[in-house]
C-alpha cells in the first residue's frame, strides 16, 4: 500500500492577544492509499485543527512546523480535487441560492475541466451514488429544502465530485440522529471502498470510529496519544487515556447506573 499522506512532526500554534496557543505538538503518522483512519479526541484535542492543516485551510496567521507530504502527487494538493472535505454542518459549505445540481456541477467543472452539460450529468450520477432518491429532480432542489441527512449526502457528493484521493469527514455525522448517522457512516464506507479513497474520519465517538476505521489515532491536548489498528486500540489499548475513553463509552451492553437494576 503506497503512502498517500505523510504527516511529520506537525506543530500548529494560533497567535492572538500577543500570546500563542499551541494546538498541535509533534504529530506524525502516515495514511496509506485506501486506508481509513479515525482521529479521536475530546474538545481541545486538536483534531479539527489537524483536518484544517491537512486541507490547507488554517488561517494565514497560524504558525505551522513540520511537514505534510503527499508522496503520490509530488506537488501540493488542490483542495476539492485531491481532497474532499465534509463538515459537521453542511450548510456552511453550500451557497444557499444555488441549486444542488449547480453546486456539485461547479466542483466537477472547476476540477475536471468538464463543460456544464457534462458536469450536470456527473452531478446527477453522484446524487445517485450517495443514494438520494430521484436524482434528476434533486438537481433542481435548494439546500434548505432538504433534511439534515439529505444535506449531508449532498455534501458528500460534492466532496467526491472530482474523485479525490482523500476524503476528510470532520464530525460529519455528529449533528444527525443515530439512525441517519449509521446510514451516512455506511455510505462513506462504501464510497471509499469503491473509489479506493483514503479516509480521515474525525470524531469524538470511539465506538463509531471502530466501526468504520482500519486504524484509530487518539488525540489529547494537541498530542497524538496512541495510534494502531482499530481492533488493537479498542481491544488492547496501551495508554491510560485511551482506556478512559473506552470506559466512558455508553453502549447497549453498559450496565445501568441505576442501582439495583430492576428495583425502581
Amino acid at each position, binding site marked *: 500500500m503506497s503512502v498517500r499522506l505523510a504527516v511529520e512532526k506537525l506543530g500548529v500554534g494560533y497567535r492572538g492577544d500577543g500570546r500563542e496557543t499551541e494546538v498541535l505538538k509533534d504529530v506524525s503518522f502516515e495514511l496509506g492509499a485506501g486506508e481509513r483512519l479515525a482521529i479521536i479526541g475530546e474538545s481541545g484535542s486538536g483534531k479539527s485543527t489537524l483536518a484544517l492543516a491537512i486541507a490547507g485551510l488554517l488561517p494565514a496567521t497560524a504558525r505551522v512546523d513540520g511537514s505534510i507530504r503527499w508522496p503520490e502527487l509530488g506537488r501540493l494538493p488542490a483542495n476539492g480535487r485531491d481532497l474532499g472535505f465534509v463538515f459537521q454542518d453542511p450548510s456552511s459549505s453550500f451557497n444557499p441560492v444555488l441549486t444542488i445540481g449547480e453546486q456539485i456541477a461547479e466542483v466537477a467543472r472547476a476540477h475536471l475541466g468538464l463543460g456544464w452539460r457534462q458536469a450536470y450529468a456527473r452531478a446527477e450520477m453522484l446524487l445517485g451514488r450517495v443514494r438520494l432518491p430521484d436524482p434528476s429532480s434533486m438537481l433542481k432542489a435548494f439546500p434548505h429544502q432538504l433534511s439534515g441527512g439529505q444535506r449531508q449526502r449532498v455534501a458528500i457528493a460534492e466532496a467526491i465530485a472530482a474523485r479525490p484521493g482523500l476524503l476528510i469527514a470532520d464530525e460529519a455525522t455528529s449533528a444527525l440522529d443515530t439512525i441517519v448517522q449509521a446510514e451516512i457512516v455506511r455510505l462513506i464506507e462504501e464510497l471509499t471502498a469503491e473509489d479506493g479513497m483514503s479516509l480521515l474520519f474525525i470524531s469524538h465517538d470511539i465506538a463509531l470510529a471502530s466501526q468504520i476505521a482500519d486504524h484509530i489515532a487518539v488525540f489529547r491536548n494537541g498530542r497524538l496519544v496512541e495510534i494502531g489498528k482499530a481492533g488493537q486500540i479498542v481491544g488492547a489499548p496501551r495508554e491510560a487515556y485511551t482506556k478512559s475513553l473506552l470506559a466512558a463509552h455508553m453502549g447497549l451492553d453498559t*450496565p445501568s447506573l441505576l442501582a439495583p437494576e430492576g428495583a425502581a
Partner: protein
Amino acid sequence: MSAPLLTATNLSKRFDSRGRTVAALDDVSFEVAPGETLALVGPSGSGKTTAARALVRLTELDGGDIRFEGEDLLALRGARLRAVRARLQMVFQDPRAAFNPRATVARVLDDPLRIHGIVPRRERPEAIAQLLQRVGLSPDLEARALHEISGGQRQRVAIARAIATRPRLIVLDEAVSALDVSVRGQILQLLLDLQRAQNIAYLFISHDLGVVRAVAHRIAIMDHGRIVETGRAAEVIANPQSDTGQALVAAAPKLRHST
C-alpha cells in the same frame, strides 16, 4: 407504584411545513412517577422535543391534557403557573443558549431564588454557595461569567439553577449530548445522585440509546409524532418490538473489538 407526578393525555400538535400539515404530536400519552426517569427516544422530527417543550409551556398544544401534581397545567395562569414552574424545570442541550453569556454564575443562580421567593435575600449568598457545592462546583466560580467557564461547568450551573427551586420534575432535553464523554459520565452521575437524594423525576429526551440504557427506568420510543413502544429500559433495548425501536438499537454505535 405511587400516584403519577405527571400525566400527559392525548397530546396533539400540528405544524405547517412546506404547505403540508405535519403532526408533531399525534395522540401522545405518558406518565411519570415521582423519582422516576422516563426517557423519550426517537429520531429527529419524532416529536420528542415538542413533547418536552409542551410540558414547560414553551409550545402551545392543539389538544390534550397535562396534570402535574394533580393540577391542570394547561389551564394555569399568572402566580399559580409561576409556582408550578418552580417545581417543573428544564435543562437544555446548550446552556449558552439559555443564559445571558455575560451574566455571572451567582446572578444565574440568584434569579430563580429571588423570582420564586425560595430564600430571603440575606440568605441567598449562602444558598448559592450550597447549590454550587451540590453540583460539584467550587464556590469560587460564583463571580465568573458563563462564557469564561467550560461546557461541563456550564451544564452543572444549568442543573444548579434547575434544582434551586426544589423541583419535582426536570425535563432534560439532550442535556448531555454536547458534552465530552469524560464529562458526560460525571454529569449523569450527578443527576442520579440528585434524584436519589431528593426524589426528583426526570423526563430524559435523547437520541442516544446507550445513555438512556444507563440512566432511565422506562423508555417511550417516538416516531412521526407518536409513541410507538414503551416499557422498562433494559427490556425495550434487549428486545425492541417496534420498527423504530429495532432501527435505533441496530444504529447505536458499538465498539468493534476485532478488525
